[in-house]
């Protein structure tokens, strides 16, 4: 059984936002419009957070790409009254739109603000959308799913060819697009995988580690080279 995870090297990230754009295109993430944006209802599964430098005013100290961290001990799933979000056997925190009743408990529970609510039906079916990802109706919560539709397709292909899933056959859109190769995706339980190796790096840390959510998105802090 795989354990899907991601390592994001903050030393490599340039803040270019390619991952943000790729994610939106891949997952039919809706543009909410100016009025909604003013109300703070922008939906962006992947966000590049910025940290200001305290000593040098107005300078950005670091960029932190933040997808859903796919916690191994997720607070959001514990409060869902309808099993619309849960941790699946391979460690992906699933989000089943058809089950969601829109109570938004999970949004309140998520310490990383990685969940978003569809206040309206933001989009209709149109050419150019990804047919592998359904459009979310009004009144459901959505979030990064580690592009699990790509896993569905990859697994289907492997099954038809009567073989196991090959390493690297399933990667998320953000990891695939990152020009600086800051985002590495793979199977944390496979000792031969790059994410397994990087996750054990002395530079590895997790966001809000003290909460005990055990995120499977692991960050590598900047090296010594930054002054």
């Amino acid at each position: 059984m795989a354990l899907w995870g991601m390592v994001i090297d903050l030393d490599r990230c340039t803040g270019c936002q390619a991952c943000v754009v790729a994610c939106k295109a891949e997952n039919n993430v809706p543009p909410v419009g100016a009025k909604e944006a003013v109300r703070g209802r922008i939906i962006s599964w992947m966000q590049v957070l910025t940290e200001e430098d305290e000593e040098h005013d107005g300078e950005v100290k670091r960029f932190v790409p933040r997808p859903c961290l796919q916690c191994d001990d997720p607070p959001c799933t514990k409060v869902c009254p309808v099993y619309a979000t849960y941790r699946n056997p391979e460690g992906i925190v699933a989000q089943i739109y058809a089950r969601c009743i829109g109570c938004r408990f999970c949004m309140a529970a998520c310490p990383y603000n990685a969940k978003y609510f569809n206040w309206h039906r933001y989009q209709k079916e149109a050419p150019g959308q990804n047919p592998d990802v359904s459009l979310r109706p009004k009144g459901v919560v959505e979030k990064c799913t580690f592009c699990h539709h790509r896993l569905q397709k990859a697994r289907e292909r492997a099954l038809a060819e009567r073989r196991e899933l090959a390493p690297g056959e399933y990667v998320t859109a953000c990891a695939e697009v990152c020009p600086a190769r800051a985002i590495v995706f793979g199977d944390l339980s496979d000792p031969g995988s790059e994410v397994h190796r990087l996750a054990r790096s002395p530079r590895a840390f997790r966001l809000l580690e003290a909460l005990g959510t055990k995120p499977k998105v692991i960050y590598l802090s900047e090296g010594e080279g930054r002054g």
Partner: protein
Amino acid sequence: MKWVGVIGVVAVALLTWGFWWGEPAVKQPIEYPHKTHVEQLKLPCTGCHQRAEKDNVAGRPPTALCLACHAGGETKSEEVKKIRAFGEKGQEIPWKRVWRLPSHVFFSHRTHVAVANVKCQTCHGPMETLARPPARPLKTLAMNNCIGCHEQWERPNEKGAGVVKTGARHVSTDCNTCHH
């Protein structure tokens, strides 16, 4: 008098119920008889629905495939003449889609037909008995149809007689396996 009105409203509601809530009937361009092809000529389903073994969707047959048999000779059938007319114009037959799964469901025909050897009739019903194209799906599929099968899945043993109970690794009931 008031009751007459109430009964009238209820009666109209019941009469139009099917009209409003039933799925609209699908009218195909050609009155294709499954019965003749499958029951009498013993053609396999995948002979015409060729994508079922290698794709997510089963697909509807292209004109050329029909003409492979129906191109030559005299015909009295109006329907065969229609096929030839499409062929002469170089057009595909505008088959209408009857079976639709909701957009949030991932379903692969290849997995179920080529890997798991599920009979088409398991989900589609007795299509081979139809003398004309179905206006609606013969069965209304709900999630229970999928889960019911996935929970107690047995497949034919490839190495010999009997059946093999497949482990959950292959046949998953995890929501994420089919929902996206």
